[in-house]
């Protein structure tokens, strides 16, 4: 919009001399904002470290004036988890990329962790952390943070690993040729290469994270109620007291929080990360600069601050730590040495012991009938996931194509869809539940749409992305040859957007499995609605605090998710990547 300012982007000096006074006033405003934020953070942290108030007495008030404070705490939990995820990502991905042996172990592990339903972790983490810090809120906080972490870390790690493994050979050679040490190479070459994927995955992770944070703030494991002041617990109390206005207020508060997060953090970060994208040329259309990034770049104080920060980082990144990596690695010998065999035997032994443990535990704990029952429930949930995916596709594919065919519409819809995807859908669950209770609807059917509520947006924004990157010439050819109707969909557009659609559908499928645990069982006041399914089974087991049942349910869901991936999604997307990828 503001083209005059945009044009100055390469000449900050000129701009600041023109608008100096205006900018200095903004500086002051920002300073106040930063101070307020610092105070808020300080208070919230002090509360986290306070002694555990008896559970029933944990005061979560439904008055609206408490909401901003709760929202801030929820946000803090999110960012604590994000920081933890980043640290984990750097360590894990680097290790996996550097060491061949570590890779053999860490990559499959990551694959498994990715398919574990995160809410299934909850029982274990809550019990673990409450046991670690008895009588302190910290235990509950850490449990919540760790739960969010489990929803964020895996895809970030995988993305970073892939970037580290695909550092361009010529840049790698340049780094070695000019004598960069391993430390310098890591910060000047490898991390920058990973930035676009890190930012993108962090954004996806945050979207999932908001869901988790809302869920994990108010949780019952056996006899222990964990209520952490936040938007999630606020909604929990509102459900208990059947206060629909409070639910609405929480939704509004969350909308504001996510809007701020989206505008202040994510969009500027995504625009900034574009600089680190590898590849030739301008790299597509330059999106307009987000206002907050513009503010940072044009405001004297902020840009000076940023400059100092970047200079410091540059100095640190050039510290001569690590080996110069000068002596080039000789090609690895083809024959496996003795060490290799020891390694394999060690891995094998660990696996055998673990397998034995699981088997003994399973044999002693579960009956065959129980396992059969759980798998039957899994079948129900599978049916739900599939039917919801089909339904969401039927709605969003045509709409997404309609949005995508017009660039202006596409951009607007894209932003909206990304925003919707980040919004924790479980805040809306009570609204549906009230409807179901009021009209006496069948929970088995009417609870089902909840699982796709948050996940459907992945389908939408991938379809939009696919359609808007569909080559215009191909569309023109179709118009020229009068190709239209169903034939056009079947032979032209659907194959063209299929790779994109699959990315969205796979993400939606994963999200739906996860949401099943939160959505197949719902409460409103004293009424509890339950649908038959694996999600409800896990949720009930969690509430009972029955570790063995949670374990069985989670493991079953894990197996189902992995089967679905290997038998359906992977072959299908391999085929799409081979056959249908445009250029």
């Amino acid at each position: 919009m503001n083209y005059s300012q945009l044009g100055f982007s390469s000449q900050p000096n000129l701009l600041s001399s023109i608008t100096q006074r205006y900018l200095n006033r903004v500086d002051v405003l920002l300073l106040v904002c930063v101070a307020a934020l610092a105070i808020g953070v300080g208070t919230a942290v002090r509360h986290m470290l306070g002694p555990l108030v008896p559970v029933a007495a944990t005061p979560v008030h439904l008055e609206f004036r408490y909401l901003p404070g709760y929202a801030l705490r929820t946000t803090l939990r999110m960012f604590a988890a994000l920081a933890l995820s980043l640290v984990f990502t750097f360590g894990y991905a680097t290790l996996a990329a550097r060491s061949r042996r570590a890779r053999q172990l860490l990559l499959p592990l990551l694959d498994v962790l990715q398919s574990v339903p995160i809410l299934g972790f909850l029982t274990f983490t809550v019990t673990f952390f409450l046991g670690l810090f008895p009588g302190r809120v910290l235990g509950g906080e850490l449990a919540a943070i760790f739960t969010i972490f489990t929803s964020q870390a895996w895809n970030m790690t995988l993305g970073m690993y892939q970037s580290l493994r695909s550092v361009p050979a010529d840049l790698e050679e340049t780094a070695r040729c000019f004598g960069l040490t391993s430390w310098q190479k890591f910060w000047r070459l490898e991390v920058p290469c990973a930035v676009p994927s890190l930012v993108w995955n962090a954004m996806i992770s945050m979207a999932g994270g908001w869901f988790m944070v809302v869920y994990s703030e108010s949780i019952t494991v056996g006899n222990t109620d964990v209520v952490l002041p936040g938007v999630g617990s606020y909604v929990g109390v509102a459900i208990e007291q059947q206060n629909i206005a409070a639910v609405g207020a929480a939704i509004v508060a969350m909308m504001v929080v996510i809007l701020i997060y989206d505008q202040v953090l994510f969009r500027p970060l995504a625009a900034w990360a574009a600089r680190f994208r590898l590849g030739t040329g301008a790299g597509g259309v330059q999106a307009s600069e987000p206002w907050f990034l513009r503010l940072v770049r044009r405001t004297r104080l902020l840009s000076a601050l940023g400059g100092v920060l970047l200079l410091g980082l540059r100095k640190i990144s050039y510290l001569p730590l690590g080996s110069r990596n000068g002596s080039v690695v000789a090609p690895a010998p083809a024959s496996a040495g003795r060490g290799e065999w020891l390694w394999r035997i060690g891995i094998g032994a660990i696996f055998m012991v673990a397998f034995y443990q699981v088997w003994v535990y399973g044999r002693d704990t579960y009956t065959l009938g129980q396992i059969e029952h759980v798998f039957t429930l899994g079948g129900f949930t599978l049916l739900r996931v599939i039917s919801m995916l089909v339904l969401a596709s039927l709605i969003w594919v045509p709409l997404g194509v309609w949005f995508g065919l017009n660039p202006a519409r596409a951009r607007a819809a894209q932003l909206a869809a990304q925003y919707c995807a980040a919004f924790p859908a479980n805040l809306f669950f009570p609204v549906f539940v009230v409807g179901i209770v009021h009209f006496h609807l069948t929970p088995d059917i009417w609870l089902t749409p909840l699982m796709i509520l948050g996940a459907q947006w992945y389908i939408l924004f991938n379809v939009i992305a696919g359609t808007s990157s569909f080559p215009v010439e191909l569309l023109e050819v179709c118009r020229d040859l009068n190709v239209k109707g169903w034939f056009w969909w079947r032979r032209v557009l659907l194959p063209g957007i299929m790779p994109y659609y699959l990315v969205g559908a796979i993400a939606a499928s994963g999200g739906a499995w996860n949401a099943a645990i939160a959505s197949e069982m719902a409460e409103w006041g004293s009424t509890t609605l339950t649908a038959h399914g694996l999600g409800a089974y896990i949720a009930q087991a969690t509430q009972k605090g029955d570790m063995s049942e949670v374990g069985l349910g989670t493991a079953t869901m894990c197996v189902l998710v992995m089967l679905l991936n290997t038998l359906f999604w992977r072959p299908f997307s391999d085929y799409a990547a081979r056959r249908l990828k445009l250029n």
Partner: protein
Amino acid sequence: MAFSSHSGPVSPPGTVLAEARHIRQFYHKDSAADVQVLDDVNLSLHVGEIVGLLGRSGSGKSTLLRIMAGLLPPTSGEVLWKGKPLHGPAQDIAVVFQSFALFPWMTVEENVALGLDARGVPAAERDVLVEDAINLIGLGGYENAWPKELSGGMQQRVGLARALVVKPALLLMDEPFSALDVLTAENLRTDLIELWSEQKLPVQSMLIVTHNIEEAVLMCDRIVIASSNPGRIAHVLSVPFAHPRNREDQAFRQLVDHIYALMTQRAPIVSEATLVNSGANGAPVAPAFRALVPVSITMLIGMMEALAAPPLNGRADLPVLAEKLQLELDDLFPLGESLELLGLAELEDGDILLTDDGVHFVLSDLDERKAMMRHALLHHVSLVKMICAALDERSSHTVRAERFREELEASMSPDYAQQTLQTIIGWARFAELFDYDEEGDRFFLEDTTSE
């Protein structure tokens, strides 16, 4: 402009700076025998000279450059740098890459400063050096630009400045101009030679790897011609002209022609008969198959038609033909060689001439051309013969492509094997010998499956 100070004592011209001794390099493979890339290469670089390493793809010239830069350890042999064995990248050897290899997240200034920052040069000193290098190479004013904002020529200038700023004694350049358009490349070459002649470059010697003959003659004092598969040094020529050189000069043209002639007089193609003999003698087994460069059938036909047409009448001087068809050496030679392989043309003393079959081909209609191509493929390309034999043997008339890919990989890298297979598929489809099913990765005979 005061950038000519060399690091360390300047050696008198003629002193040996770097020396590659008996370099052999094998491309390591997990499965079958290793593929040899370089065979007993000896090369020395002296102070005060620009050396051109001229060769075709497959001559291992880029590999040799990386070995001399210390980026790649040779399988055997050694590189002496200022008399001492070289292990890993040395401080005063710098490399300029074909792809520029600029870091997209660093500004021009930061890219140039890379080598200095890595050494921990103090900021004040670094800034002076960077500024000097940037001005020297004609990048003044572009300090804060991002690489993606620059044209290819400007990007390569950044690559040059980054290499020069560390004041290397030796500058290694890997096809530095081949990614640029003709005008830009010429502009950069001229600037570089001018700086060199005026002794403004802080380097004592340069090695330029290229496949462009004119470029080598234009810039270098000595030209080393490498032969292919495996790479060996075939000829060494000195270029007696003073800078600046004139491309239209009679002597210049003659030298270019001479090099064309040298490069077309290749080692004889290894036939299966000689293969058996050399195997029996205990000598290293030469590759059973030759890697084919992707040359489409339309290019082959286009080339033959151009050759047969009036001004040339079936015979052409390669440099002239290159100019007429606007092709570079790396494009022209594979075409000529493919035609030679198929018995449709011959390369001789820097000339290419159509054989009788070639002339006949041009005069024929499409069906006849297909028949001739069938005949040529079956007689001259052993891989095609093998595939056809395998297809005929089976009642299903299909055979897995994997089998042939593996056989190719015994004598070349997987990339070349894939490329060779693709080229052959293209030719065979034109000749309607057999077809290929990509989804199933198998060859099949068209008629049997359609029935």
